[in-house]
């Protein structure tokens, strides 16, 4: 992005991992949706896998500072304290695409991304360039002046990604970002993720394991609020055998790790 260096480029990086959690617990009602999660994520693209109800969205919302942890420790960009000022500084360096991407239908794509840039306190003199760059990166240049309400599901998702990256975040959190994208768009999206992941910590929650294989260096597998596996994709691939269900090595690894975890719990329980 020409001439658009922002906080991430000038801030000192006095931390080993962009995201570091220890025994992180987040309750939703009486249930612990995230239960004692340990996590260390640095620069690169990380996939967040798990069946429905595993706690992926709760974890991402917590990392996005929308939810407050109820227990454990959470360090984001080297800071665990959460004064109002620190939280504000941290949020300037976050990008977030929620699972349900709300938007103003009457705004054009450019206006909405610009509005989000304002909310993210991108300096005014850099806003126009940052907005254009974000829109270009998600390949919405030709639709930049179309209203959000006129976009297809896939385009909306891309607009959502554009707003998430408009501040060139150090941590980018994407919850189900590929829903609605066609195969070609998904391939472009994976390339975009790899590009962003070269300098930032990207955490992508998804059900689509092929996205993980194509774009991610590391994987976190969640089940019932806890982490079943955290490591690189090759270890996930290696975890499966031909006997495990799945059409690819990653799917078989995913199935095997979940099966072993369930068996281990049953064994421990019995």
């Amino acid at each position, binding site marked *: 992005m020409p001439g658009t260096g922002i906080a991430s480029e000038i801030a000192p990086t006095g931390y080993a991992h962009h995201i570091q959690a220890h025994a992180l617990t987040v309750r939703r009602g009486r249930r612990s949706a995230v239960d004692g999660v340990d996590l260390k994520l640095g620069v690169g693209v990380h996939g967040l896998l798990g069946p429905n109800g595993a706690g992926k969205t709760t974890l991402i*919302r917590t990392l996005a500072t929308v939810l407050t942890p109820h227990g454990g420790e959470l360090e984001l960009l080297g800071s665990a304290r959460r004064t109002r000022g620190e939280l504000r500084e941290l949020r300037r360096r976050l990008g977030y695409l929620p699972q*349900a991407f709300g*938007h103003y239908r009457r705004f054009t794509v450019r206006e909405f991304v610009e509005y989000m840039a304002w909310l993210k306190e991108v300096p005014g003199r850099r806003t126009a360039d940052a907005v254009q760059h974000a829109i270009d990166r998600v390949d919405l240049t030709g639709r930049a002046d179309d209203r959000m309400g006129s976009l297809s599901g896939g385009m909306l998702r891309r607009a959502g990604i554009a*707003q998430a990256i408009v501040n060139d975040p150090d941590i980018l959190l994407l919850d189900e970002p590929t829903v609605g994208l066609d195969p070609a768009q998904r391939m472009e999206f994976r390339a975009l993720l790899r590009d962003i992941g070269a300098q930032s910590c990207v955490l992508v929650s998804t059900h689509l394991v092929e996205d993980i294989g194509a774009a991610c260096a590391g994987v976190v597998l969640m089940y019932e609020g806890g982490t079943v596996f955290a490591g690189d994709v090759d270890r996930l691939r290696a975890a499966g055998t031909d006997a495990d269900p799945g059409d690819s090595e990653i799917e078989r690894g995913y199935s095997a790790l979940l099966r072993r975890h369930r068996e281990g719990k049953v064994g421990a329980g019995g």
Partner: protein
Amino acid sequence: MFRMLRLEAKRSIALLLFLVVAALTRVFLWMDVQQWAASWTPLVHSMRGTAWIVLPVVLAAAIWHGGRERRAEVSELFAATPRPHRVRLLPAFLVFAGTAALAVAAVVGWAAVVVAGNATFDGGEWPLGLAVGLLAAVAVTLVGLGVGRVAPAPVAAPLGAVLLFLALTFAQVRDGRPANRLVDTVLPMLPVTDDFHRVLPAFSLAQGIWFAGLGATGVLLAVAVTSRARALALAPAVAGVALGAVLAPSGAIVPAPAATALVCAPGDDRICVTQVHSRALQDLIAPARKVLEAFAEVPGGPKRVQEDQVSWMFDDGRPTAGADLDTVRVALPYRTREGGIRWEPDAVLSIVAQEATVDPGCFDGQEEQRRAFDASGAITAALLDTPTDKLSPAARQAYDTLRALPIEERRRRIGDGRRAGLTCGDPLAVVMGREAGR
């Protein structure tokens, strides 16, 4: 911030709100134009009167916009951004409050230009009255934005508008009840007033306190995130209404002696009008002189023609007993045409002649009143040689009776009939010679 203001103005319903509020204010002001076109106090009254229809519209638009974030499901997205949410709401506050105030101010500005070209009295208090009206529009906008954030359901906007409309409608129906200081302070509309009265600045200030409190409640409601904060947000409105009601004078509208001071024709102090209606003097002089000259030979005829300094809308200052037969008191309601003010000479002559011969306040019954006006018509036609083609049969008969009398007897009969008409007798019977004058 400026770009965000532009974005809000461009992509919200602000422009629509501006057009609707400006159109409604213009239409409802225009419907009242004869009341305010030449006088500041009635302009304030008419402008404030539009609140009845304008503020519910403003409230609905503000509630709708206030609920936009939750309806669009962007709360989650925005919650992860660093901009404090009170700052995030600032463009909407500024655009909507500014839109409502600008729309009203633009139309009132036009009206003020009309009044400035015609008014002959300026008590100096009208800017305060108009400012309170604008403040009321701003306060209702802010409350709407706050309510919209608390209750983002689509039904909230029309429901809020209907409730406010009903509340304003029922609150101003007094049914003869005396003025209530609390109700007068809370209502954006003013109690009844006219050219001869003024709105006390103390009352405008009390209302200003109330509307400022209401606006503060709207802002606090919009930024409140907990139930406790929402409950506390009501405090400024409650404090505002309490303080406003305590500080408000018991009577919001009081007579304006400077407005009703008499201004007389140059070199002829028999013909006078009030200061506030002094533009009418030139139109009154000729008809008034004609009437005075016609009555000069009539025993007990009038010596002066003055504009009535007592408003027909109010009872204050009206003498309770003893008609002043020497003075013809006329009411000179303004008539506007194409923004100007004029009195038709025939209409003024008719008004003066009628007021010289009959006091309509004397006659409650329809038949009594008809007889009094018949006598008045006959006297006027006989004395001023006005056309007789529109006289009723009874008036025509009275006219013929008068014309048949010798000149001295005719003048005496006219004088007696006039006295009867102004002292609640039966002027027609007197004119017809069936009853002696009092």
